[in-house]
């Protein structure tokens, strides 16, 4: 590893000894009708780490993330988040899950009819029943964190893609989740706008936020992820620290994926 690369690498977050992992995915399968998308996926996300999931389009990355957050139902295996089993049919478990997990999407999914501020305070007031004043204080704090304090009164359509995505991250952060899931959050952005979003994510990682991201930003994953997971045909094909995964791929599939110019 070159000196420059070493300088850019963040100190590895040691998994807290004895602490339970934040997410444990155990032998999970998932089918859409006849199409089996996940084949016995197992994965452990330790507290305070960043896990980057990479792989070709259609390899099941989004589906895995959606299963972790009870947006898709699994057909087999178990997922535990913060010690609680995830089951879409169990209301109480889903409710608890929502307080533990935040999710950011490729398409931002800001609420277009609400101001940036209200996008963030909505769940604080409606779900957490916080007073308006308190909710707005929290919202302004997280907006400052993503560098958008001046956009509180704007509407989503008045934002650039990069700004919209940072608001979406702030909206999740406001609820103080224990883990954040990111599904290709920079893929819809013009190349010159990805930097500002990645910067926010880097800041979060350095502050010790537990993060799972599906990404095509290989340089980012290489520099900041603690674990890189390569998915292929609905399976965890290879996983390990970025140094191993990128420098010494064990399987021809990963080798081919890495050399395909991503």
């Amino acid at each position, binding site marked *: 590893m070159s000196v420059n690369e070493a300088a850019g690498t963040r100190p590895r977050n040691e998994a807290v000894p004895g602490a339970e992992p934040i997410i444990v995915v155990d032998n999970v399968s998932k089918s859409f009708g006849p199409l089996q998308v996940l084949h016995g996926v197992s994965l452990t996300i330790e507290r305070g780490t960043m896990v980057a999931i990479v792989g070709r389009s259609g390899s099941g990355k989004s589906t895995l993330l959606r299963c972790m957050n009870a947006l898709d139902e699994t057909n087999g295996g178990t997922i535990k988040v913060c010690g609680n089993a995830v089951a879409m049919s169990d209301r109480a478990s889903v409710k608890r899950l929502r307080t533990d997990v935040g999710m950011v999407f490729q398409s931002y*999914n800001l609420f277009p*009819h609400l101001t940036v501020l209200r996008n963030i305070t909505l769940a604080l007031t409606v779900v957490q029943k916080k007073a308006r004043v308190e909710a707005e204080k929290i919202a302004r704090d997280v907006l400052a964190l993503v560098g958008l304090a001046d956009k509180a009164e704007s*509407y989503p359509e008045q934002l650039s893609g990069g700004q919209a995505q940072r608001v979406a991250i702030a909206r999740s952060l406001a609820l103080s989740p224990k883990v954040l899931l990111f599904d290709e959050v920079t893929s819809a952005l013009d190349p010159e706008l990805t930097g500002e979003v990645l910067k926010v994510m880097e800041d979060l990682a350095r502050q010790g936020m537990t993060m799972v991201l599906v990404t095509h930003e290989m340089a980012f994953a290489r520099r900041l992820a603690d674990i890189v997971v390569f998915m292929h045909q609905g399976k965890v094909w290879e996983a390990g620290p970025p140094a191993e995964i990128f420098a010494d791929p064990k399987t021809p599939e990963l080798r081919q994926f890495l050399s395909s110019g991503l």
Partner: protein
Amino acid sequence: MISYTFDFSFLLTTWPAFMRGAWQTILLAGSSIAFGFVLALVCAIIRSGKSKLAAGLVGAYVEVIRNTPLLVQIFIVYFGLPSLGLRLSAETAAVIALVINTGAYGSEIIRAGIDSIAKGQIEAAECLGLNKLQIYWHIVLIPAVERVYPALSSQFVLLMLSSSITSQISAQELTAEANMIQSETFRSFEVYLIVAAVYLALSVLFRVVLWAIGEVAFVRRRKLRT
């Protein structure tokens, strides 16, 4: 050569009747719009809801109303319901028929708005922990109505104009007043020209009021206008 001499002198004595008619039309159309909107909202919710049976029933109602003449609907309510033992004044019958009519057209408009809400919006709200009811209200219904509000407003103005047809059951409203004045003065051309002008003024009034309601209800519309 056809020559016609306009004579508006009857207005001197009949203008209070025109004003009364205009006011009656405002009341008739206003209440029909208010109840019609509620009915449209309920129908749209049911139609985009989970129950296939309920959605089918509402769908049938909408199609029946949209494929039969308003006048016939009014006659059915006014002459039909009494044979079921329900005696209605002409005005009540008129409001009921107009509400049923607007409920159908309005529900189609609102449903289009509901359908236009992206799935990602709902998933994002789920991830934020909102429950089903909260999502439906904050993320689906409000933006849906906001989105179709201009179309809804046009529908409501159309309803006000259509209310003239209730003169056929002698409901008290502008056109009925005009018919009366016409039969007393025999100045049909002038009378209906005046009536047209009053309807035009009412249209403007309704548009302004509906616009103002939209300004208050949908803040984004106001803030983002360029």
